[in-house]
C-alpha cells in the first residue's frame, strides 16, 4: 500500500469554452503515515497454539473425570469420550478467545472438529481391525484351523478340532472362476467405453455407475431366480461365482475406465501414425501403458468379491465339508462361514467365526496394499527390471542391425519403391 504523489498539472493547452479557464484540477494526495503491515500467518503451529491445545485437553480430561462418578451419576466409556470432547472444544474456544478475535476462535474450533472427525474415522477402522484380530487370536494360532473342515467337528467341540480349510478352498475356487469371468469382460468393456466412440458408450457408462450400487442381495436373488428356479440347476460354487462376478464387474470396469483415460493421447496418435490398426494400438500401446492401473482395478474387484456374503448365501449355501467341485453341492466361502459361525450361541464357534473373519480381513488388507502399491505408479511407469530388459533388447537389436548390412553394402542400391519400414525385431539375422 504505497501512496502515490502526483505532480500538479500546469498549463496544458486545453480548448476552453466561453473563454473560461479549465476547472478540472487533480487532488493533491498527502502521504499518510501508516503502521508497517506484517504478513499474517495462515497456517503454522506456534508455542501459543500448543499451550492452548494441551491446556484445553488437560482441563477437559480433568473435568470429565470429575463429572463421571464424583459430581454426577454419568457412566459409560462412550459417554465419557463424548463429554470430554465437548468440554475440550469449549475450553479451547475460551483459551483462544483470550488472545484472538472471533473469526480465529471459530477457525480453531472448527479445525479441531474436522480433525476430530478424521480421528474418529481412523479409530473406527482401527477398532474394527484390532477387535476382530483380538477375538480370533486363540483360534488363529491353531494349525488345524487352516487344514481341517467342519465335517467332523460338532458345534460344541473345542478349537483343537475342525477348521475352515473348506471355506478357504471354496473362496479360492469361487474367486478364481469369478476372475476368469470378470477380467476379460471387465477390461474389454472398459476398452469399449474408452477406445471406441459409439452412441451407446455414455449410456453404458451410466448403467455401470448404477451397477456399482446394486445391492449384493439382488445379485444373489437374480442368479437364484434364473440359475436355480428357471434353469433348475443345483446350488453350487459356480452359481455363487457368477453372482459374485456381477458384483465385481462394475468395480473393475469403473477403475479400469479411469486408468485407460489417463493413457496419454499422443501415444495413441503415435501408434496410429505408424500405421497400426486400432486393435494393435490398444493391444500393444494402450493396455501395456496402463498395466499397473489395470492390475489395481482387478485387485480392487477381487477384494470386493472375496468379501461378498449375501450372494454366496443365496446361490451356494453353507456346507460343513470340503467340496472342490464347483458344479454341484454347496460350497462355502470365508465370509459365509463367518456369518454361519457367529449366528450360533456356542462360544467356540463364535471364536472360530472371529478367526475366519480375521483370515478374510488379512487377505483383503493384503490385496488392498498390493493394489495401492501398483496403483501409486503413473501410467507408463517402467520398473527397474523392465528398463534393464528393454535396454538389453535394444542393445541386441542394435548389434543385429550393425551386422545385417555388413555384406550387402557393396550391392547396388535397391530399386524403387523403397522397402517398407521394418520393426527392428522383424529383421532376420
Amino acid at each position, binding site marked *: 500500500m504505497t501512496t502515490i504523489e502526483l505532480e500538479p498539472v500546469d498549463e496544458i493547452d486545453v480548448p476552453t469554452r466561453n473563454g473560461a479557464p479549465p476547472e478540472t484540477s487533480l487532488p493533491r494526495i498527502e502521504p499518510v503515515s501508516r503502521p508497517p503491515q506484517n504478513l499474517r500467518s495462515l497456517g503454522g503451529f506456534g508455542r501459543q497454539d500448543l499451550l492452548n491445545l494441551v491446556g484445553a485437553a488437560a482441563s477437559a480430561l480433568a473435568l470429565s473425570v470429575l463429572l463421571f462418578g464424583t459430581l454426577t451419576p454419568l457412566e*459409560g466409556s462412550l459417554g465419557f469420550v463424548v463429554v470430554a470432547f465437548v468440554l475440550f472444544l469449549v475450553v479451547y474456544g475460551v483459551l483462544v478467545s483470550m488472545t484472538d478475535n472471533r473469526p480465529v476462535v471459530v477457525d480453531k474450533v472448527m479445525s479441531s472438529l474436522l480433525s476430530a472427525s478424521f480421528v474418529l474415522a481412523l479409530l473406527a*477402522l482401527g477398532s474394527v481391525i484390532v477387535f476382530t484380530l483380538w477375538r480370533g487370536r486363540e483360534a488363529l494360532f491353531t494349525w488345524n484351523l487352516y487344514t481341517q473342515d467342519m465335517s467332523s467337528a460338532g458345534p460344541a467341540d473345542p478349537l483343537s478340532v475342525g477348521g475352515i480349510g473348506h471355506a478357504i478352498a471354496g473362496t479360492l475356487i469361487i474367486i478364481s472362476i469369478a476372475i476368469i469371468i470378470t477380467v476379460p469382460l471387465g477390461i474389454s468393456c472398459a476398452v469399449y467405453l474408452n477406445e471406441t466412440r459409439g452412441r451407446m458408450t455414455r449410456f453404458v457408462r451410466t448403467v455401470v*455407475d448404477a*451397477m456399482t450400487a446394486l*445391492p449384493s442381495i439382488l445379485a444373489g436373488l437374480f442368479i437364484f431366480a434364473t440359475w436355480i428356479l428357471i434353469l433348475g440347476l443345483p446350488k453350487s460354487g459356480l452359481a455363487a461365482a457368477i453372482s459374485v462376478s456381477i458384483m465385481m464387474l462394475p468395480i473393475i470396469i469403473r477403475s479400469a475406465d479411469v486408468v485407460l483415460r489417463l493413457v496419454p493421447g499422443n501415444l495413441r496418435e503415435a501408434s496410429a501414425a505408424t500405421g497400426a*490398426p486400432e486393435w494393435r494400438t490398444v493391444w500393444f500401446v494402450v493396455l501395456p501403458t496402463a498395466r499397473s492401473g489395470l492390475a489395481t482395478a482387478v485387485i480392487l474387484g477381487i477384494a470386493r468379491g472375496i468379501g461378498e456374503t449375501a450372494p454366496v448365501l*443365496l446361490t451356494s449355501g453353507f456346507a460343513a465339508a470340503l467340496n472342490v467341485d464347483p458344479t454341484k453341492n454347496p460350497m462355502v466361502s470365508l465370509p459365509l462361514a463367518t456369518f454361519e459361525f457367529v449366528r450360533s450361541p456356542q462360544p467356540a464357534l463364535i471364536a472360530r467365526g*472371529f478367526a475366519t473373519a480375521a483370515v478374510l480381513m488379512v487377505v483383503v488388507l493384503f490385496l488392498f496394499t498390493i493394489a495401492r502399491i501398483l496403483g501409486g505408479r503413473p501410467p507408463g511407469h517402467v520398473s527397474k527390471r523392465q528398463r534393464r530388459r528393454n535396454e538389453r533388447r535394444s542393445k541386441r537389436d542394435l548389434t543385429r542391425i550393425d551386422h545385417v548390412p555388413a555384406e550387402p553394402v557393396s550391392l547396388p542400391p535397391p530399386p524403387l519403391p523403397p522397402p517398407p519400414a521394418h520393426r527392428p525385431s522383424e529383421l532376420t539375422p
Partner: protein
Amino acid sequence: MTLLSTSLGASSSPDPRDPDPRSLVSRRDRGDRIFHAGAFMSGMFVLAIMVMVGLFLSIEASDALRTRGFSFLTTMEWQPDRGTFGIAAVLLGTVLIAAVAVFVAIPISMGTALYITEIAPPRFRSAFVSLVDLMAAVPSVVYGLWGLFFFQGAAISLSRWLSTWFGWIPIFAVEGSGSETALSNATVFTASTFVAGVVVALMVMPIQCSVMREVFSQVPLGEREGAYALGATRWGMIRIVSLPFARGGIIGGTMLGLGRALGETIAVLLIISPRFDFNFRVLEAGGNSVSSLIALRYAEASSFSLSALMAAGLALFAMTLVVNFTASAFVARSRSGASSEA
C-alpha cells in the same frame, strides 16, 4: 471427412506427380472390425446383465404383485402363505436404517474429506486417502461382527442417555418402559435400528468421503486465494468458497452413500431382530430391511412366497436405481464446474 476428400478431388489444379489423390476416409480392416464388434459386444453384455436383473425380478415378482395390487405397498404384515403381505413396514424400516446411517456418516465423511484436503500435512495426504479407502474394502461381514459384539455393548449407555433425556422426541422414545425399567433392562436397547444404522454408516462413510474429497480438491485456486487475500481464516475460506463450490458433490456423495445404505444386507441381518410392524423408535430393539428380509426368507418352500420376496427385491432395486441416478446427476454436474461459473 467425406466433405474434405471430395473437395480435394474436385480441386482444379491436379498435381501431375499424384494424379489420383488418396481418400482421407480410412476404412477399418478386418482386424479392426472384429475389435470394434468385440468391444461393442462386451459393452452390450454388461448392459444386458443390468437389464436382465430388473427383468427377471419383475417376471418372478409379477405373480405376487398381481394378487396384491396396490395394497402391496401399504400392507405392513408379511405372511405370503395367508395371502396378506406388503412391503410398507419393511420398506420404511430400510429407509429408517439408511437415514440413521447417512445422518451419522455425513458429519464424519465431510469432516474427514475437509481434513484431508485442507488441514492434513501434504506429505501424509495420500496415505490418509488410502486409509479411508481401506475402510471401503473391509468386508461387510466384519463390520457386522464389530457391530454385534463390540459396538452394541458400548452403545447401550448412549442409547439409554438419549432415551432418558430426549425421550419426548418420538423417534428417541423406547416403548413400554418408564425410565426405571429402561434403566434396569439393557436388552431393550440392543438389536435396534440405531445400532444397525451406525454400522452401515461406517460402510457408506468412505464412499461419501471419496466423492466429497474429489470435489473439494477441485475448488479453483484463484477463489481460494482470493478469500485468503480478503482476510479470511481457513475455516472462513472453507465456508465461503469450498462448501458452496462443492454443494453438488456433497449432495451427490451423500445420495451415493444412501444408495449403498439401502442395499446393505449381512451387517443388518446380523444385528437387527426382525419385526413386521413399522417401528420408528430407532433406539428400541427390532426393525427390518428389505435385504435382510430376503436373506431370512429365501429358503421358504412355496413358490408364491418366493414371488413375494422377488417383489420386495424389485422395490429395493427400483429405489436404489432412482437414488443412484439422481446422485450421479448431481456429481456429474458439480464435476463439470457448472457451479463455479456463477
